C-alpha cells in the first residue's frame, strides 16, 4: 500500500509552519528552478532540500517512496538529454525534476490536507470575481491527494489480476482495466460526494 505524498504526523518546525507559507515556498522553488543551469547548483539545492527533510524527521523509507514512481520517467529523460544535450544538461534537468517532486512531497508530508485546502481556499478567494468557487478548488486538491493511493491500489489489483491469469507485461492489458476501474471509482466517489451534500 502506498504512502505516497500522504501526511506524516510530527512536531517538527516544518510541521508547524503555516501551510500557506509552505505552498508559497514551493511555488517559489518551482519558479526559481528555471534559473538552475549548472550541476553544482543542483547539488546545492539537493543539500538544502536534504536539510529540510532532516529537519522534518521523516523516515528514509517514506522519502524513497516519493521518488520511486518518477524513476522510470527520470531515467528516460536522463538518457534523452544525455544524447541530445550532454551529461551536464541531463544532470540539471533530471536533478531539478527530482528535487521538485521531493519538495512537493515534503509539503504534503508535513501538512494536513485540510490545512492545505484551507490555504488554497484562502489564496483563491480573489478568484470569486471570476466566478471561481474557492471551496471547489480546495476540494479538487484534496481529492487529488486522496486519489494517489487509490489509483496506486487499483494498479496493484490490475497487475495481480494479470499475473493470476498468466498474462505478460502488456501495456494495453494493464492500461485498459486500470482506466475502467479508475472511471468506476470516480463515478462512485461522485455519488458519495453528492450523498454528503457537496453539490448542494
Amino acid at each position, binding site marked *: 500500500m502506498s504512502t505516497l505524498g500522504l501526511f506524516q504526523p510530527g512536531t517538527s518546525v516544518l510541521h508547524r509552519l503555516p501551510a500557506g507559507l509552505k505552498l508559497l515556498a514551493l511555488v517559489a522553488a518551482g519558479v526559481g528552478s528555471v534559473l538552475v543551469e549548472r550541476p553544482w547548483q543542483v547539488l546545492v539545492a539537493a543539500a538544502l532540500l536534504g536539510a529540510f527533510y532532516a529537519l522534518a524527521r521523516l523516515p528514509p523509507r517514506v522519502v524513497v517512496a516519493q521518488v520511486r514512481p518518477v524513476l522510470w520517467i527520470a531515467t528516460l529523460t536522463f538518457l534523452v538529454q544525455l544524447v541530445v544535450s550532454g551529461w551536464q544538461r541531463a544532470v540539471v534537468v533530471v536533478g531539478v525534476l527530482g528535487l521538485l517532486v521531493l519538495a512537493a512531497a515534503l509539503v504534503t508530508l508535513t501538512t494536513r490536507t485540510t490545512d492545505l485546502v484551507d490555504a488554497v481556499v484562502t489564496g483563491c478567494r480573489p478568484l470569486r470575481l471570476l466566478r471561481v468557487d474557492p471551496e471547489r478548488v480546495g476540494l479538487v486538491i484534496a481529492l487529488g491527494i486522496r486519489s494517489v493511493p487509490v489509483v496506486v491500489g487499483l494498479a496493484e489489483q490490475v497487475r495481480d489480476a494479470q499475473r493470476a491469469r498468466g498474462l505478460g507485461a502488456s501495456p494495453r492489458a494493464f492500461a485498459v482495466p486500470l482506466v475502467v476501474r479508475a472511471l468506476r471509482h470516480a463515478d462512485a466517489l461522485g455519488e458519495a460526494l453528492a*450523498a454528503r451534500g457537496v453539490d448542494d
Partner: protein
Amino acid sequence: MIEVAGVSHRYGSRPVLVDLDLRLSEHRVGVVGANGSGKSTFARLVNGLVLPTSGRVRVDGLDTRRDGREVRRRVGFCFTDPDAQIVMPTVAEDVGFGLRRRGLPKQELRQRVDGALAAYGLAGHADHPAHLLSGGQKQLLALASVLVTQPAVLVMDEPTTLLDLRNARLISSVVAGLPQQVLLVTHHLELLDGFDRVLVFDEGRLVADDEPAAAVRHYRGLMG
C-alpha cells in the same frame, strides 16, 4: 417518516421500480431482494441521490425533488464500498469533512470528530492514511463520517457485502445501537434479526412487506 407515493423509476427504457407506495416510520427497516431487483435504487430515492421518474418521495415532510439539500442533511447514506466514499486522505480529516462544509467552528468540529472517532473505535487512527485501514475499519470510518453530521435517518446500501463475518457483525452491532431510523439494504439476512419491518423487492416490485422472519421466508421462497 419516509413516505413513498406512487413511485416508479426507469433507467432509460428499463423500469427498475414500479408503482411503489410506502410509509416507513419504524426504527429499523430492512430491504432484501435479488441483484437488480431495485432495492439499491429504492435506497438512493430516500436521500434524493436518485429522483423518481414519477411519484414522490418525502422524508419528514421534505420532498426529495424540491428540498434535496435539506433531505440530504437529514438522511445519511452509507455505500457498499467504503473506499469509494472516503474523501479525505486521513481518518480524522474524513470524519470532519461533512462538518467543515457546514462551517462549524474549529473547536466544536474537533470535539465532534474526536467523539466520533472514540465512539467507533478509531481514536488511535486519527492521523492514519484512510486507505491503510482494514475493510471493517474503513466501513466504520464511512459510518462515522456520516453519523458525525447527526442525520435523522441512516440509509445503508449493502454495507457488509465486502466484509467478513466478524466485521459484518461489528457493523451490525454498531447499527443496532443507533438512535436514528435505519434503512438497511442487505444480502446478509441474519443482520435483519430484531428489525421491525422488512421489505422484499423482486423485479422492481415490492412483493412482501412483513416482520423479518416472514419476509425472509418469502425471500427464500423467491430464490428457490
